[in-house]
């Protein structure tokens, strides 16, 4: 039982998934839900500029996987599908909020919403703010690598880009973060 602990290509499938003849949607997805929900919420929280939406985003991803089960079950494990959903939903939500924010001339979002104040200390808030300030592709690569523990290959598969591009985005993102977080080290 349980995920890989690395979030990477799944090497330790959940019990339900190890038996191909038990492709039971409820059993498999509820197991993956228990194993991976927390880490997926962590991923969504760093990708979204409003932390409070993260759980909704992940729940929507699970609902999509549930509804699209005939397609999801063709994959070795539902986790890559769920990751893609979270990244895409977060990106769509971000775009809409950015547009909406412009429309009402609100100041740019920061990371001091209530949920973040409860969850993070000052240093952690600064780290999340710096990650959220990265260009989208760098932010997603950093989030998948460090907040979801994805390998380069899994990150590339999730984002639909080459492994070389992932390495480039990671390198650039880390370089920016090195500078931005200099005072914290």
């Amino acid at each position: 039982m349980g995920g890989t602990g690395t979030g990477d290509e799944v090497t330790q499938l959940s019990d339900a998934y190890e038996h191909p003849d038990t492709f039971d949607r409820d059993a498999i997805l509820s197991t993956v839900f228990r194993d991976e929900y927390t880490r997926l919420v962590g991923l969504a929280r760093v990708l979204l500029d409003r932390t409070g939406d993260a759980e909704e985003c992940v729940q929507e991803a699970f609902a999509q996987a549930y509804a699209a089960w005939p397609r999801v079950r063709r994959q070795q494990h539902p986790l890559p599908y769920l990751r893609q959903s979270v990244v895409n939903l977060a990106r769509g939500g971000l775009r809409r909020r950015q547009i909406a924010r412009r429309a009402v001339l609100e100041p740019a979002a920061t990371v001091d919403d209530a949920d973040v104040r409860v969850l993070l200390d000052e240093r952690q808030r600064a780290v999340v703010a710096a990650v959220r300030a990265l260009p989208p592709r760098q932010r997603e690569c950093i989030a998948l690598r460090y907040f979801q523990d994805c390998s380069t290959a899994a990150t590339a598969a999730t984002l639909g880009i080459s492994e070389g591009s992932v390495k480039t985005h990671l390198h650039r993102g880390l370089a920016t973060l090195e500078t931005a977080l200099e005072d914290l080290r």
Partner: protein
Amino acid sequence: MTTTEELLREAASALRRDADPTDVIWERIRAEATTVGRGSSNVELTDPVAQTARQRWLAAGAVAVATLLVVFVLVTRSGGGDGSQVQIGADPDIAVTQQQVWDLTRAGVELANALEIESVWSVTAMTGAVPDRAPAELAAAREQTDAALTAWRQAVDDSGDLVASSFTADQITSAEQRLAGLPALRRSVDEAQTNPSNVIDIFMSTAEAVLEISPTLTRALVDGEAVFELVTIQALAQVALAQAGVVGSGLSGLSYPTANAGMADPKQHAVEQFGFAHDRWDLAMRIFEGGALPSQKQAIRDRSAAVLGGDDLDQELASWLDDVLGAAPPDPTTWLEQGLAVLAVYQQLTLDELDHPTKPSSAPPSAPQETQADPMPTPSPSGTTGG
């Protein structure tokens, strides 16, 4: 000393707190997933390639389904639903009518394509992007539009009774009214009497008016396969039209201080216009995918990916407009060339569909459509909009 990677992992761990996968949440997910409009019958609408809210997915699906229902009603009323099987080409009169539908649709698509390209070069000229090419390209685009307009009017004249119905005649009148404004629009472009956003809107609505004639022609078709083909062509043409909007609004956004000068908030306007264009493209693609065959969907994905080559220009532009730290605007020439290349793909795909074997000239008895598993689409998070 703490490394950057350690800081990231520490923050990641903290962000996972209080996110407990409780049974209550799981039951809520299951309930949500099994509500009306979701489920295995709706797999296309719930695929993770979607980058927009579920509501938009459902809206797109609803539009596609509604379109098909209207088409079926029209087909039934025109005699195809009485239980008799009418083959393409089996009746000479029917074959002639279908040829007229195809000819008029092709003329409309070619006119829309020309208007799309002219809109992009008009905005390019207005914004001063690519100054060494814009004047000549704009002049060539206008000639192309004029030629396509002449051909379209000829096709309308040759359509006879096909365009005699009040519904179709009204659509043609509406399109002609839009097209009559073309000379004035061109003067506005040349004399910079308006802003690029208005130019894009007028070109888009003109092309749309032309394209909206095709759905009214489905009542003349009695072969279900031909009807579906026409619906697919219409949907593809709308994707191309939306892509032209993305390219134009992107160009306008890249030069928003001058392009939107005089507006209360030039940058806000640029952000909104680009967002709307992006959303329109997204909706058009969803409608296309809602009714297309798996092979058609795969063709558009393959060719889009080939053109895009993994570039993320639209994300770059969105990030720059949104003031993301470190984001730089894409080069206008690169944006234009890439956007036009993607536009050309969608336009050509539309024309290719017009040459599909269901077109009347081939006239074979329609064979059952080969069933084909729809492969899991390769997620292309930002790519397919191109721009």
